[in-house]
């Protein structure tokens, strides 16, 4: 009896702590549902309720959302194609200079995005891919690729040697072993990588605001949001409604794939 009441006491404290932690996000939702003239009053609940802000978002932001989706999926594809084979090679195949490569990957995760953006900017002007979607996908993938390679190689080095040897005995070459055995086993790692690559590309601000700022409607949702912030007469209702919409992928992923998210954070955990 006593033990139960003690843990319930912890639950109450836990709920309060979580509420404090999530308050800023509640506040965002609250403002987004409040009528324009009532926003400055700052009621704790959206008493002057309206959905008009979301109508504005649907009217103005759909192209940006589409771009973000495209950029996110492109980044996921590029990241997986590069990192899965590399993870396999680093974990299970003989390659010269493995330690140097590992060191490069660790350092790559630590390089500030603003430094990358500065370099990309001049390179992109030379290549003529400034303000293009492929250019943004390439830049966004640099956030995820080192993390992805390390996650894949960490998981793949745990795959039983006997299994791989048995495949070789049955006449499978390395490519077949990789596609038929290693990849299917590593499905969970691939999901985690895909999740984070998508989230980071979706959330990216630095690359979008430097390498794709003249992209007009072909800019991601973070730039749609930035336009509101930059305007002289800040429309907080529409701004917050856009912010809510921009957070939807996060919410969906948390509900659908929480265990993959937790796995990703602890697996070396990388984010800007």
């Amino acid at each position: 009896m006593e033990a139960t009441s003690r843990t319930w006491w912890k639950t109450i404290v836990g709920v309060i702590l979580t509420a404090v932690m999530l308050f800023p996000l509640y506040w965002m939702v609250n403002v987004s549902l409040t009528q324009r003239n009532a926003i400055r009053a700052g009621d704790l609940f959206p008493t002057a309720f309206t959905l008009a802000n979301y109508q504005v978002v649907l009217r103005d932001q759909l192209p940006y959302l589409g771009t973000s989706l495209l950029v996110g999926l492109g980044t996921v594809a590029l990241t997986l194609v590069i990192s899965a084979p590399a993870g396999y090679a680093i974990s299970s195949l003989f390659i010269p200079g493995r330690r140097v490569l590992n060191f490069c990957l660790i350092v790559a995760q630590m390089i500030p995005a603003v430094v990358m953006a500065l370099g990309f900017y001049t390179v992109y002007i030379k290549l003529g891919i400034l303000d293009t979607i492929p250019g943004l996908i390439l830049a966004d993938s640099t956030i995820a690729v080192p993390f992805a390679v390390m996650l894949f190689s960490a998981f793949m080095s745990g795959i039983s040697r006997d299994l791989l040897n048995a495949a070789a005995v049955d006449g499978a070459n390395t490519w077949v072993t990789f596609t038929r055995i290693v990849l299917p086993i590593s499905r969970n790692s691939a999901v985690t990588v895909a999740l984070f690559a998508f989230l980071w590309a979706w959330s990216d601000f630095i690359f979008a605001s430097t390498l794709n700022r003249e992209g007009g409607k072909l800019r991601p949702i973070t730039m749609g949001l930035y336009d509101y912030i930059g305007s002289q007469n800040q429309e907080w209702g529409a701004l917050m409604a856009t912010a809510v919409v921009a957070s939807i992928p996060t919410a969906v992923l948390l509900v659908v794939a929480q265990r993959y998210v937790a796995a990703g954070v602890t697996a070396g955990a990388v984010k800007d």
Partner: protein
Amino acid sequence: MNTTMGRDPRAVTSSAPRQRTDSAQKKKEEATGATPPRRRHRRQWVGLAFVAPLVTYLVLFYAFPLVENVSMSLHRFTRATYVTGEAPFVGAEIYREVLTAPQFLPTVWQTAFFVVASLVLQYAIGLALAVFFHRNFPLSVVLRGLFLVPWLVPIIVSATTWQWMMDADVGILNRILGVFGVDPVWWLGAENALWAVTIANIWLGIPFNLVILYSGLQNISADLYEAAALDGAGAWRLFWSITFPLLRPVSAITLLLGFVYTLKVVDIIWIMTTGTGRSQTLATWAYGMAFGKGTSAVIQYSQASVVGTILLVIALFMGVVYLVVQRSERVA
């Protein structure tokens, strides 16, 4: 590390067909025994083929832009450079300009404050929460999951929300302080800006610290606690003699990664204050000089690259530190 994935049942159950003929067995012995040089050569090529896309990618999209960045810091780039293509080589001249600029030292100090205050408080709060969530209680899993949300929401979203909450006139933060009789704080004004962005950044970093430290706690044997509790140790004592010392390796990695991530933060500061007042850090300074809202005249690519190169050197250094820490743990 990645406990969820490590427990993937398919890793154990799925297996290739296991019909082994005698000749196959022999082949296997060949493969695992002394490898003839020719085969070894082939295996090396196979490995290279698998890793080639990554190496090409790292050279093209990491090394090349970074070299470009360093080169920009040694040439005098202006907006006109992109039209005329002229950028005279000036050696260390721009480095001297940046290092002696009146903003340089204050920016370094503000960066140090931002990083240290963020790290200490993120870690302390994250650790307290990890200990709190360590013993399961009803709803603990759900609540722990919810704590991740601020970390996953796009930073521009949370930064905007904090900006609104910290509004001097109508912001909810000042209203809450008002309830306790505190005068309104001009959060985003020049003097308080550094604390304002630090507070928002601490909030952003708590989930990361919580998750990593929590997973570290899971690896400490419960027997230790039981034995110590039998000896009459209280909760406070248990924390300082068992939890804290045994978490040391995990703490080191957490703080190290936290340092690197905090150093490169741009978006949260840029959205909240555009790096004005005392909230300018090295990263936002570089960003502002190259891509700030001011057009043409004030754009300073080369100066931004100098600051960028300084950040790059710190990143390289921390990479080495990371490896050393990791290795010493493996030995210990």
